[in-house]
C-alpha cells in the first residue's frame, strides 16, 4: 500500500465518520417542505412561470417607455425600478433555461405627463404584477421557483407603495388600507 493510498484511506474514514456524526444533527430539523416531499423543481410549473416572465418582460418595456424625458432624481428612481424588473426577467429566464417560451416585449401602458401621473399608473401595474406572482406561488409546486417569486414580490410591493406616495397618496392610503 503506497503512502498516497493510505492517506486516502484515512481521509475517507475521517470524512465518512464526519458525515455519520453530522447526520443526526440535521435529522431533527427537517422543515415541512422537506418532510412533505416538496419538489425543488416541477416541470408542471413552467407554464405559470412563463406567464410571470412574460409579465416582467412587459414591465421592462413599460419602464423603458416611462423613463424617456425624465431627468434628475425622477430618472434615477425610475431607472432603478427598471433595473429591478430587468433582474426579475433575467432570474426567471435563468430558472426556466431551455423551457423559456418567448416572452412578449409589448409595454403594458404608455406612462406620460407629470411624475405624479406616471407614478399612479406604474403603482397600479406594480400591484397587479405582485398579485400575479403571488397567485402563481399559490399554484406552483416547486419550492425554488416559489422562493424566487417571493423575493420578487417583497420588493414589488415596496415599488407600489413608494410610487403611490409619489403619486400623492397619503401614507395610510399607500399601505393599502
Amino acid at each position, binding site marked *: *500500500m503506497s503512502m498516497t493510498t*493510505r492517506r486516502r*484511506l*484515512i481521509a475517507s*474514514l475521517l470524512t465518512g*465518520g464526519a458525515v455519520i456524526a453530522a447526520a443526526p444533527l440535521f*435529522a*431533527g*430539523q*427537517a*422543515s*415541512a*417542505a422537506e*418532510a412533505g416531499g*416538496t419538489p425543488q423543481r416541477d416541470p408542471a410549473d413552467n407554464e405559470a412561470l412563463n406567464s410571470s416572465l412574460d409579465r416582467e418582460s412587459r414591465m421592462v418595456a413599460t419602464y423603458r417607455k416611462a423613463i424617456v424625458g425624465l431627468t434628475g*432624481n*425622477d430618472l*434615477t*428612481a*425610475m431607472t*432603478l*425600478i427598471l*433595473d*429591478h424588473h430587468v*433582474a*426579475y426577467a433575467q*432570474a426567471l429566464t435563468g430558472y426556466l433555461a431551455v423551457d423559456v417560451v418567448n416572452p412578449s416585449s409589448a409595454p403594458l401602458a404608455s406612462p406620460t405627463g407629470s*411624475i405624479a401621473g406616471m407614478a399612479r399608473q406604474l403603482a397600479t401595474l406594480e400591484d397587479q404584477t*405582485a398579485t400575479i406572482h*403571488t*397567485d402563481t*406561488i*399559490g*399554484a*406552483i*409546486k416547486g*419550492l425554488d421557483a*416559489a*422562493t424566487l*417569486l*417571493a*423575493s*420578487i*414580490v*417583497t*420588493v414589488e*410591493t*415596496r*415599488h*407600489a*407603495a*413608494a410610487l403611490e*406616495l*409619489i403619486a400623492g397618496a397619503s*401614507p*395610510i392610503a*399607500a*399601505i*393599502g*388600507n
Partner: protein
Amino acid sequence: MLRSSGALAATTAVLAACSSTKPSVARIGESPTTVKLEDLAVTDVVLLRTAMSMETMAAAMLSDSAVTALASKDTAPVIAAFAADHTTHLEDLRVLISARNGEAYSETNAKLMQAYGQNALDLVASGKLPEDALALTLAVETLIASTYQYFVSLTAEPAVRADLVRLGGRSSRRAAVAAQLINGGTGGFAPANDKDGVALVATLPSAFGSLSTVQVKLGPPNEVGTRTTVLMDTPSLNSLIY
C-alpha cells in the same frame, strides 16, 4: 507490510474506542447525563404560529410608549395604523391555523423579544431621539416582511405560501412608507450617502427581498458619538413556536 499492518491496527483501535458506550477517560465525581432533545417538526402550522408571535411582537413594539411618545403628530397616526394592521393580520393567521387543526398563539415571540426586541425599546426610551420612532418602525416592518419571505422556503402547502407572501407584501408596503417618511421623494428611492459619506435610508435598497440581518441604529450616542446597532434576525429553529 509491517507499516501497513501497524496503521491498520491503529485505525482499528481508534474506531473501536469511538464505538465504546463507556467513557474512555476516567472521571472524578459525577458527570451529568445527556438528555436527548425532542425531535420537533417544522410544520406549516408551526410557521403560522410563529408568524402570529411575530405579528404580536411587531404590534407591541410599535404601540409601546417608548415609541409613541417620540413620534411626531404627523407620524404618530401612521405608526398607530401600522400597529393596528399587525393586530388585524392575527385574525388572518388564526383562520389559516384553525383550518389546519392547529392552535393559535397569542403571545409575542419571547425569545426574539429577549434577543433584540426589548433591547431596541430600551434604547429608544433612553435616547429620546424623535427619529428613532420611524427608524425602529422601518426595521420592524422590514423584519416582518423578511420573515414571511423566508417562511415560504420552509412551507409545504402552496396555498399557505401564497398567504404568507400576501401578508409579507403588506409589511413591505409599510416598510416603503416608513422609509419615505424618513427620506422622501424619488431622491430617496436608491441607496445613497450624504455629504459626510453616511448611508441614507433607501426605500428600495435591493432588487430582491433580502433575508440578511436587519440592522438599525438606536439610542443615545456614546462618548465617541456612535450609537448602538441593534441586529434583528428572522426566527430560526430555536425561536419557532412549536
